[in-house]
C-alpha cells in the first residue's frame, strides 16, 4: 500500500534519511523500530509531507505522493498521530474529534455508529467529551489522539510512539485498540521503542539505523532470532 524507495530527507543542512526503503502492506500492522535518532520520526514526517523528501519516491496505492502537500496526503486517507500527540489543548475532546471529521460541521453530524465503536475502544473519549483536552492525562490524550485519527474511515494510520510514557494498564488498552483497528482492515504503521508492545502487535517489522532501514521482514522472524535482535537492537525481545 505504502512504499518508500531510496528516500532521502534533509532538514536544513542536516542529511537525516539516507535512502530509506520501506514497504507497508495493506491490512497489516508494520512496526518501525530503531534507536533514538535512527530517523523513524523523520520517516513518518516525510511520508506525511511535513518534511519533503529531497530524493527518492513515496507511493500510496501506486500514486506518487513525494511532492504532495500534507493536507492532500491526509485527504487520501492517511491519518497521523505525532509523537507529541498533537491534541489541541484549548479545545474540548468533542471539538478535537469534530475537527478531524472533515465532512462534519457540527457534533451532531458525526457518525453515531462509528462514535459508539470509538467509545468502546477508548471509553475516556466519551467520559471526557466536554472537557478541555489539555486537562486530560497523558494516556487519555493518547487515546484521544488515536480516536481522533479514526473518527472517519482511514486507509492508513501512522502513529509515532503510541506507548511512550504510558502506564502498563493504558498500554494494554492501546494494544487492544490497535488489534481491533487492524482487525477492522485498517493498515497501520507504528513507530515504537517498546519492544514488547511491538512484538505483541506487529505483523511486519522494519528496523532503522543511521537514516536507513537495515532490516525488514516479519515480526515473527525477528522474534525467533535472538542473534538478529541483538545485532539490530542491542537487546533481545
Amino acid at each position, binding site marked *: 500500500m505504502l512504499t518508500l524507495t531510496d528516500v532521502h530527507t534533509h532538514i536544513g543542512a542536516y542529511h537525516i534519511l539516507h535512502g530509506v526503503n520501506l514497504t507497508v502492506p495493506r491490512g497489516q500492522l508494520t512496526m518501525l523500530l530503531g534507536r533514538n535518532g535512527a530517523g523513524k520520526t523523520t520517516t513518518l514526517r516525510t511520508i506525511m509531507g511535513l518534511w519533503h523528501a529531497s530524493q527518492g519516491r513515496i507511493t500510496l496505492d501506486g500514486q506518487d505522493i513525494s511532492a504532495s*502537500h500534507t493536507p492532500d496526503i491526509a485527504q487520501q486517507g492517511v491519518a497521523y498521530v505525532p509523537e507529541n500527540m498533537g491534541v489541541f489543548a484549548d479545545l474540548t475532546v468533542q*471539538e478535537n474529534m469534530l475537527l478531524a471529521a*472533515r465532512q462534519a460541521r457540527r457534533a451532531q453530524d458525526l457518525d453515531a455508529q462509528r462514535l459508539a465503536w470509538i467509545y468502546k475502544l477508548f471509553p475516556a473519549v466519551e467520559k471526557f467529551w466536554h472537557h478541555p483536552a489539555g*486537562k486530560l492525562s497523558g494516556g487519555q490524550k493518547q487515546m484521544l489522539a488515536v480516536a481522533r485519527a479514526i473518527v472517519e474511515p482511514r486507509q492508513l494510520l501512522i502513529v509515532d510512539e503510541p506507548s511512550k510514557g504510558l502506564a502498563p494498564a493504558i498500554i494494554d488498552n492501546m494494544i487492544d485498540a490497535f488489534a481491533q483497528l487492524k482487525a477492522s482492515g485498517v493498515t497501520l504503521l507504528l513507530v515504537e521503542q517498546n519492544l514488547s508492545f511491538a512484538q505483541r502487535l506487529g505483523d511486519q517489522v522494519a528496523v532503522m539505523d543511521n537514516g536507513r532501514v537495515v532490516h525488514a521482514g516479519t515480526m515473527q522472524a525477528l522474534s525467533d532470532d535472538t542473534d538478529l535482535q541483538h545485532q539490530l537492537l542491542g537487546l533481545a525481545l
Partner: protein
Amino acid sequence: MKQPELDLKPLLLVPLLALIALPLIGSPSSWLTLTVAGLAMGMIIFVIASGLTLVFGLMDVLNFGHGVFIALGAFVATSVMGAMSDWTQSANVWLNLAAVLPAMLVAMAVAAALGLAFERFIVQPVYGQHLKQILITMGGMIMGEELIKVIWGPQQIPLPLPEGFRGAWVIGDAAIEKYRMFAVVIGLMVFAGLAWLLNRTKVGLLIRAGVQDREMVESLGYRIQRLFVGVFVMGSALAGLGGVLWGMYQQSVVPQMGAQVNVLIFIVIIMGGLGSTLGALIGALLVGLMANYTGFLFPKLALFSNIALMVAVLLWRPQGVYPITNR
C-alpha cells in the same frame, strides 16, 4: 459546542483598574466620563488589534505593517463621507448613519483588498523568517503611507463627526459623549461577531486549532494557508474599520496615523496573549482606560503608563492574560 471553562481572573482586571482610578480621580462624574472614554478607546483598539492577534497566532507572522490598513480605512472614510456631506451634516441621525455605515463598509472592502495583496506579495515570501517579516512589513507600511500621500496628499484631513454624533448625554455631572457610545456599540458588535465565528462555526474551530498547532491542522487534511489568507484579509478589513472609528475619534486623519496606533496595538496583543481575541479585548480595554486615566491625572505619563501596565501584566502572566496553550 461546549466551551472549556473560562479563567475569570483576567476579566476582573478591567473593573479593578477602574476601581483603583476612582479615588485617585476624586470626582465620580469625571471618573464616569473618563471610564466611558477609556472603554470607547479600548473598543476601537480592540477592533484594530483583533485581526492582528489572530494573524500572529495562526501563522506566527510579525506584521508590523498592520497600521497601513488603519490609515487607509480612515482616508477612504474621508472620501466617502466627504461625498455624502449633506447627510453627515444633517441633524437626522439616520441620515448620519446612512453615510457612516457605507463609509465603514467601503473602508473595510478597500483595506481587505489591500490586505489580500499585502499577504500575497509582502508576507508570503517571508514565512518563518521573523527578522525579514519585521523589515518587509515595516517597509510595506512606509510604501502604503506614501501611496496615501500620493492619493490624498500629505496634509492632515479633517474627519468631522456627523451632526447627530456630536455632543454628549449629561447624566448628573458626567458627560457621556454620543460618539464614544457609538464606538462601544460597534466594538461590541465586532466582538460578538468574532466570538460567534470562533466558537460556533467550523471555520472558527479551525482558526482556534490553527493558532495552537497549525501543523496538526494540516495533518488533519485542511489547507491552513487558505485559512490564513482569509484571516489576514479579515484582520485587514477590521483594521480598516478601526481606522474609520479612530479617525472619527480624533476627528482628523494623517498618513502616519497607523504607525502611531501600532504601538498601542502591540501592547494590547502582547498583554492579551498572542492569538487570543478575548485577551485582545481585555488588553484593549485596559489600555484605553489607562490612557484616559493617566491622561487626566499625569498627562506626560500616558504612553509610559501603558508600557508599565504591560510589564505588570507580563510579570503576572508572561505569555499574556489568555495564553494559547500549545504555543
